[in-house]
């Protein structure tokens, strides 16, 4: 495991100079598992979620391979049901929900605030342990027979199937606490630990993204908790809340489930949008356009996210009035997202665009997220949703927003903050190749699914009509290209840990505070107290070729005066 390798050889980033950083202070696995350092917790989370992404990806490739031909290709129908369920459950609960906040946010947030740690470091570690425990339960479920209900666990099937529902839902329940604690920590940190000069509207937009995400994490996840608890109680004790034979109501389950799960998708996208704001500005070498609009739109999305859950239930038996209300609200939630997209485009306008790997991902995001978002409108309209619900159109839509949106932005952020986290630069050439493969592979995989879906191909189906064969085969080929892209990515990233060129403190020319410390940072983050300036004042920096990095034109501008304690 990468974590062990980091410590065994005296840590990455340390060569014969024995350079000290957070990676080298403290040795051995226990110094990591019991750390209170947000940077180490972030790195452990990164390893954890990337592993989950790999596992979820394997399930995806198995699903796509099965779908190469109608009827059985490599597995039985029952096995297939388990494969797509596990793909969904692992990707959503183990990878994408914790994803950006846990792996990148934990590392970057305190640094962006010029702080030494998050407000509640022990809670942070607890959050990580909960993730591990939740992952164990999920793995147990997979091993003892897995689940075949779909990641949505709809009743009444989920209460009656003989598969390992309880262990999986227990795992997800525990993972929910991990998410809540992370969100709680971020809210408190942002409220209480901003440095002098950093008012709310002087915060980097990534923090607005994390903050609005945290609001949702904290308010929505408990409802998932009670939903899963009720599901477990139904299976184990037969309490009957969702079971019609016991006097229950299965549609109630869907209200419960989607009250969380819709806001959950905004947990996925808001941090990604936060990353986008950073990347767009830095790699256009231009101040972000429309800061306040972007900031407020994050909050607006968080609030609106709670008002549209019924759009997952248009064909469930939900009443007509409710359908109409949710449809109307769904259209409105697109507006703040669009506001962001326009502001990013305006940021690029007349900027000095640098097509480094992070920017390639940011540009991909614009294209892919736009498609994903627009196709959401088809699904939000009642008349068209009736035909598109439960078809591949839906599958394509959410992959465009979750993968084409969140994962792409996550990859952009990973490549952006990689030098800061590990003190190494990766190979730009290979990174560009991987980005291209991911982009091409992704579109081949999922665009075909829009077409299939609109022609009536249902989702989660094991078998299909002959007319869909070539679409499925194209989609599967696309997934293999995607896989190749990620394989190459893993290769050059891991290689960079050992052989990558050493990174300067600020290789990209960004003005946020995490770049004011070394790459990688020392254990206590900063060696001096900082005050915050404009996080997008890129003009205040100049490139210094000798160190292959950027420096402040006036280094004293962001340092607190000596003896000036707050």
């Amino acid at each position, binding site marked *: 495991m990468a974590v062990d390798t980091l410590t065994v050889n005296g840590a990455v980033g340390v060569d014969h100079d024995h350079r000290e950083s957070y990676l080298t202070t403290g040795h051995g696995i226990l110094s990591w598992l019991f750390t209170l350092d947000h940077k180490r917790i972030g790195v452990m989370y990164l390893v954890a979620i990337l592993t989950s992404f790999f596992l979820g990806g394997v399930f995806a490739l198995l699903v796509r391979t099965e779908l190469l031909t109608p009827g059985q290709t490599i597995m039985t129908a029952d096995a297939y049901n388990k494969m797509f369920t596990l793909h969904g459950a692992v990707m959503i609960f183990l990878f994408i929900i914790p994803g950006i906040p846990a792996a990148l946010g934990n590392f970057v947030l305190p640094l962006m605030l010029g702080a030494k740690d998050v407000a509640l470091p022990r809670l942070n570690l607890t959050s990580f342990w909960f993730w591990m425990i939740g992952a164990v339960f999920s793995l147990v479920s997979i091993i003892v027979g897995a689940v075949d209900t779909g990641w949505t666990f709809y009743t009444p099937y989920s209460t009656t199937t003989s598969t390992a529902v309880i262990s999986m839902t227990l795992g997800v329940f525990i993972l929910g606490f991990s998410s809540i604690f992370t969100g709680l920590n971020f809210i408190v940190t942002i409220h209480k630990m901003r440095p002098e000069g950093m008012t709310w509207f002087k915060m980097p937009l990534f923090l607005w993204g994390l903050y609005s995400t945290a609001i949702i994490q904290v*308010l929505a996840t408990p409802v998932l908790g009670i939903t899963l608890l009720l599901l477990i109680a139904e299976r184990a004790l037969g309490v009957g809340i969702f079971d019609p034979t016991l006097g229950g*109501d299965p549609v109630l389950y869907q209200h419960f489930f989607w009250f969380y799960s819709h806001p959950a998708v905004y947990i996925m996208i808001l941090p990604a949008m936060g990353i986008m704001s950073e990347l767009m500005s830095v790699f256009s070498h231009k101040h972000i356009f429309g800061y306040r609009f972007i900031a407020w739109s994050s909050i607006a999305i968080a609030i609106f996210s*709670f*008002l549209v859950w019924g759009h997952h239930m248009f064909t469930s038996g*939900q*009443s007509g009035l409710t359908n109409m*209300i949710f449809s109307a609200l769904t259209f409105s939630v697109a507006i703040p997202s669009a506001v962001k997209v326009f502001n990013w485009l305006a940021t690029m306008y007349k900027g000095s665009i640098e097509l480094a790997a992070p920017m390639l991902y940011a540009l991909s995001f614009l294209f892919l997220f736009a498609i994903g978002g627009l196709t959401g409108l088809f699904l939000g309209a009642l008349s068209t949703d009736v035909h598109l619900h439960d078809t591949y159109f839906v599958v394509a839509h959410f992959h465009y927003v979750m993968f084409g949106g969140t994962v792409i932005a996550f990859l952009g952020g990973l490549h952006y903050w990689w030098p800061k986290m590990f003190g190494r630069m990766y190979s730009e050439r290979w990174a560009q190749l991987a980005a291209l493969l991911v982009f091409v592979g992704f579109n081949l995989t999922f665009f075909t699914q829009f077409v299939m879906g609109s022609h009536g191909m249902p989702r989660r189906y094991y078998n299909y009509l002959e007319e869909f064969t070539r679409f499925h085969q194209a989609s599967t080929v696309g997934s293999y290209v995607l896989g190749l892209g990620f394989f190459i990515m893993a290769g050059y990233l891991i290689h960079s840990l050992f052989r990558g060129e050493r990174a300067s403190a600020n290789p990209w020319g960004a003005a946020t505070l995490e770049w004011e410390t070394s790459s990688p940072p020392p254990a206590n983050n900063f060696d001096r107290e900082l005050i915050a300036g404009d996080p997008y004042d890129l003009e205040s920096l100049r490139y210094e070729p000798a160190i292959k990095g950027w420096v402040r034109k006036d280094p004293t501008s962001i340092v607190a005066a000596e003896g000036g304690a707050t």
Partner: protein
Amino acid sequence: MAEHSEGGVHVASLKLLVVVLIALMFGTWLTVSATYVDLGALNIWIGLAIATGKAALVGLYYMHLRWDKPFNAFVFLTAFVLLGLFVGITMMDSAHYQHVIIPDWPNK
């Protein structure tokens, strides 16, 4: 009445704590008594109003919200607002299709 701890944090006076206790006990007695008076559909709302009054007393005085930063209260209240939304829409929706399941609903 307003004492402060060494850190400058407000300390509730014992007298206040006792007064609130008495008010809460009275509220409980009131709630139970109200169930013996038939006011039809109003009963549940009266009960909820008294319960909310008790909750307000506990929140403001026992939980210190009266002297705390307002944001803390805002956070707590937001949860209730969201809950209200959840209950409201779900009840509304469920009411709309009950007649499909029970023919003479809401008449029993």
